[in-house]
């Protein structure tokens, strides 16, 4: 058997490079606890500061399971999807219930974001590989990716996923990290043309957050692109005929059909649980009335009110952040990240049917937005400028971490 030098293995290089950035970023978060306690004159622990708001609800569900709403509080915890909770309960069980729930949640989140980042980078690596292969088909493209390429790109990629603004959520007892991991794995398996596995990842994402169901549209786009590439489509053929052929292929290829049908499975399983728990399969949606009851014209009305400053200033900022996200998604379509852009747009439209609240978190937590940002940064030739951008993003993240520790309303 041939002896494999593990240090030469690309996966190993990527893994180690990401690990260094990951450890550095978490060290900085820990240092920020000292900074916060010194500035504010408090003595809070890392776990306490990292887990405000919904993290406390997740902590409660991990420890006690789902409960009925109290007479004095209609905010029932079934608004929170179960997969992250189940995984945390399992990890806590492995520690015989000894590890603090917040630490369990943080450990799970950190492992998830690392896996997501790793496979996300593998996707980018393969995509660039294919692009180059298509461009220089006679070249041995695998050799083009030398150490410098990997180092430069993992630094950009790792910095974005571990230190970009709003990525601190992926270190706390929130579902963001797990959601990003499943989305990253979904696109990775789509790229590998393992559609049933991609469907499974989507099912898991839809059991983590309702927006995971939207991955079905991304899958359909991926299957369509695959169909266009593999079939002989005549230029004269109408779009109607192409779609007809595509649908025929879907229905005659059982694994494609299976993959599509698997996508929303997680949400439907949760709905079944809710039917037996409280009698209402849509309880997770109906319970939203306990949080907000503002009703504006969906999407356009919501964005208009937010961007024109008709509601609180933080929502004006979030409204413009949403506009920025749409621009990034437009850029991604231009760069042929079709399925990612479709997922990003639909997953942003869903919260915009009611409010701009928390949309920054939703946008960054949708994974694809960061892919777009990465692509933009990667276009820059000047390494110094890239460094400056990474540092600026990290500094914004530091400021946001401070606001997070302070439970600042600008993050809501």
């Amino acid at each position, binding site marked *: 058997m041939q002896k494999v030098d593990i240090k030469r293995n690309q996966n190993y290089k990527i893994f180690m490079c990401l690990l260094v950035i990951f450890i550095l970023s978490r060290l900085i978060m820990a240092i920020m606890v000292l900074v916060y306690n010194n500035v504010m004159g408090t003595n809070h622990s890392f776990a306490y500061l990292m887990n405000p708001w919904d993290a406390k609800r997740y902590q409660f569900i991990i420890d006690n399971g789902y409960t009925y709403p109290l007479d004095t509080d209609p905010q029932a915890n079934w608004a929170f999807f179960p997969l992250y909770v189940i995984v945390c309960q399992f990890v806590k069980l492995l520690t015989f219930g000894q590890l603090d729930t917040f630490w369990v949640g943080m450990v799970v989140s950190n492992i998830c974001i690392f896996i997501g980042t790793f496979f996300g980078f593998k996707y980018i690596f393969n995509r660039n590989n294919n692009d180059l292969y298509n461009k220089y088909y006679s070249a041995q493209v695998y050799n083009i990716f030398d150490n410098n390429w990997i180092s430069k790109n993992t630094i950009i990629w790792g910095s974005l996923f571990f230190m970009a603004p709003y990525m601190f959520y992926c270190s706390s007892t929130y579902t963001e990290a797990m959601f990003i991991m499943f989305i990253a794995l979904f696109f990775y398996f789509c790229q590998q043309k393992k559609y049933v596995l991609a469907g499974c990842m989507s099912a898991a994402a839809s059991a983590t957050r309702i927006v995971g169901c939207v991955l079905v549209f991304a899958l359909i786009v991926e299957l369509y692109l695959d169909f266009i590439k593999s079939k002989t489509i005549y230029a004269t053929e109408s779009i109607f005929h192409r779609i007809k052929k595509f649908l025929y292929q879907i229905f005659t290829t059982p694994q494609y059909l299976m993959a599509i049908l698997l996508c*929303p499975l997680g949400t439907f399983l949760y709905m079944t649980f809710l039917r037996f728990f409280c009698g209402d399969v849509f309880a997770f949606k109906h319970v939203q009335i306990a949080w907000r009851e503002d009703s504006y014209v969906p999407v356009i009305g919501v964005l208009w009110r937010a961007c024109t400053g008709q509601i609180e200033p933080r929502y004006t900022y979030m409204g413009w952040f949403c506009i920025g996200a749409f621009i990034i998604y437009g850029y991604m379509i231009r760069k042929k990240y079709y399925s990612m852009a479709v997922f990003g747009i639909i997953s942003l439209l869903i919260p915009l049917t009611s409010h701009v609240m928390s949309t920054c978190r939703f946008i960054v937590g949708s994974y694809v937005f960061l892919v777009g940002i990465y692509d933009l940064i990667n276009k820059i030739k000047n390494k110094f400028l890239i460094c400056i951008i990474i540092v600026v993003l990290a500094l914004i993240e530091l400021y946001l971490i401070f606001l997070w520790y302070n439970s600042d309303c600008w993050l809501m």
Partner: protein
Amino acid sequence: MDKKTDRAWVMQHKGIIYAACLILVFFYFINMWWLATPDVGIEYKMYYITHELSDWPGYGNLSYTLGTTEICTGRWDKEGNLVDYTVCMRKGTGWERNQDMGSKSCDKESFIYYIPKKSVDSATLTIQVKDIWCNNNDGIGVYVNNKKVGVFNTSGQHKFTIENYEKDELLCVKFDTGDNEFLLWSICLDSF
């Protein structure tokens, strides 16, 4: 497994995969059916689903014991402490969110719902109006289950007679305010 064996496996197990797809479709349809037919209590339905209630009363708390005077403020006082009197948590739509000083009407119609625990031939609805702002002489009409039981146009206590109603059936009190507004402090339903 390489691509060829992968494809061969799929072709061999085509029937099983289609059967699994059918099961999934069936499972999704069952959930759609459950979505159309929720198996929930009336409080849940009126607060979470139809949004007819503006406050969450709690499971089973639309039930009403005759003679209970309920104060129309929120559950908490300005300092955030729970109040020590019985609060009217059965208000429907048409009331302002801020209830510190009582419940102020904010729409053309304002509702309050009861599920009486006892059937009664006739009863009295007593309301304590803290303030009233009338823009016309029509006053504010009071309806019980869409039947007019009286009108008021001043602040203070007002009593209205209600004809028979059945226990465990929803009783809807409607204040037809039109262009007027009023501030309700307390409400009580009692048998003669």
